[in-house]
């Protein structure tokens, strides 16, 4: 197992390098002179020169990348052009908030998605099953930010049951987590349903029933474990999707997360923050891929020996 993890880690290294290069090169995709763009309209030549020197833009691109990457590995992502604070501290604090929101959303997606998916697979062809597939399509299609606005309007503003904005206390998590998780719940439910249906038709399930295993045991030990790989894949994909969706949810609920920080940085052309934020997200995603691979190997031991 340790060898498996190391092998996956080595395989992910080039992707991590590529992602860091992509995050770095963003600044150089800017049409025209990045220093002039950052300085803004009407900046003096002295200001532009100062920014160019400050960001090291006067050196060859490859040298710039090497310096940026070298500093990044020791946790120095530069200084924000707007707040004049170190980028790492800002990004880390905001990322923790985004992660908390994403995990809460994931819990919603898992609870609702697995329950409805398994339920409708076991009651295939009934009215419930049909109603569920219609709701699932709507659930996939509903725009996250709009759902967030509606939930906020009903439960926070009209009924005043829950706080509308901010992140004080557990109650503040409810609406943002629901907003973020319902979309994903629909997808998790769909894949769970088809995956459970697939496994239910297999010979070993009939055998398990025949040898006298109770329905609960058959479901948990035989069906779910064998249907887990596609569900895990979707969950891992959804985690990334939720991390992205968090950007919109954060804007609706004024959540102090990374998405909000990035949006503001983009509007203010604060490139060190943009690059740092993107890099952190990329690394988180790569780590997530690794965790998924390891989980595959835990669920299905055959994968370890491939």
């Amino acid at each position, binding site marked *: 197992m340790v060898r498996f993890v190391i092998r996956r880690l080595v395989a992910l290294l080039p*992707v991590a390098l590529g992602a860091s290069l992509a995050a770095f090169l963003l*600044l150089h995709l800017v049409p025209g002179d990045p220093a002039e763009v950052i300085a803004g309209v009407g900046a003096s030549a002295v200001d532009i020169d100062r920014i160019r020197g400050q960001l090291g833009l006067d050196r060859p691109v490859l040298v710039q990348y090497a310096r940026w990457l070298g500093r990044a590995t020791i946790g120095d992502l530069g200084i924000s052009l707007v707040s004049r604070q170190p980028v790492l501290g800002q990004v880390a604090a905001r990322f923790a908030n985004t992660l908390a929101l994403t995990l809460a959303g994931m819990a919603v997606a898992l609870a609702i998605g697995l329950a409805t998916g398994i339920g409708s697979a076991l009651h295939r062809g009934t009215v419930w099953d049909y109603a569920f597939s219609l709701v699932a399509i709507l659930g996939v*299609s509903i725009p996250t930010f709009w759902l967030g606005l509606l939930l906020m*309007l009903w439960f926070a503003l009209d009924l005043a049951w829950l706080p509308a904005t901010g992140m004080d206390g557990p109650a503040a998590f409810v609406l943002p987590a629901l907003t973020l998780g319902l979309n994903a719940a629909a997808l998790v439910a769909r894949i769970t349903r088809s995956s459970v249906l697939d496994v239910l038709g297999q010979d070993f399930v009939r055998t398990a029933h025949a040898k006298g295993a109770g329905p609960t045991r058959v479901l948990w030990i035989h069906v779910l474990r064998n249907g887990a790989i596609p569900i895990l894949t979707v969950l891992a994909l959804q985690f990334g999707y939720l991390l992205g969706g968090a*950007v919109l949810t954060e804007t609706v609920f004024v959540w102090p997360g990374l998405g909000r920080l990035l949006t503001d940085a983009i509007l203010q052309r604060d490139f060190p923050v943009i690059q740092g934020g993107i890099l952190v997200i990329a690394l988180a995603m790569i780590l997530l891929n690794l965790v998924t691979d390891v989980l595959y190997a835990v669920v299905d031991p055959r994968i370890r020996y491939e």
Partner: protein
Amino acid sequence: MARLRRNLLAIVGLLLVSGLLVVALAAPWLAPADPNASNLDEVMRPVSGAHLLGTDGLGRDLLSRVVWGTRTSMAIGAVVLGIALVAGTAVGFSAGWCGGVVDDVLMRLVDVLMTFPSILLAMAIVAALGPGLANVMIAVAVSAVPRFARIGRAVLLSLRHQTFVEAAWALGTPDVRVLSRHILPNSLAPLAVQSSLLFATAIQSAAGLGFLGLGAQPPIAEWGAMLAESRVHMRVAPMLVAAPGLAILLTTTAFNLLGDGLRDFLDVRLPAS
């Protein structure tokens, strides 16, 4: 029964998509008023005979803005799909066809792009290019390229050793012709399914970026930007939030239904990628 029900949903999707296309194309004739004509004496009026959906914070006719927004969103979908489909398939075909180093390099690039959640990738590109509708279209298209590259490559690899392709080769058909006449027509089914689903995602992503203020800039009538403009008036004039949101929901549902239906109808089984 299940098949019939699914086909029914697909037909509903097709009808909705056709309807939306008509609205988009006929927007200048369908919209009762100029979507950008503001009238500060008529701010946030409720639903009435003169304004079927009421007016927004600048006194503009909401129905006209929603109708013109259809045009904006369908244009976004079409442009994004065009770029992503052509570029993605080209990348996927080249990777699968050339194999070796070209395959490795191209697919590693695709892996890197897929590392980022697509809306964040689009945001990153907008960060470099600057906010605006055109840049959002480019950004969303680029973030969708990996999907088509993967499908293109997978289909090509599964077809290249089929007898009819090898026969074409054996007869001395040039590579380009084998690709365009034999491989491409056989990859249309999975590409069509993915295209319909992408149309939905593209409209939603662009609306999301519009909502963040990174996309369509005022006064362009775009559903996401309209939601951002009117959210402060949400309690006073709920219609301002309801109408553009429902429009996005309806459009994405239509394309998702169509995509799902096409998948069943064309019996597409994609190789896991």
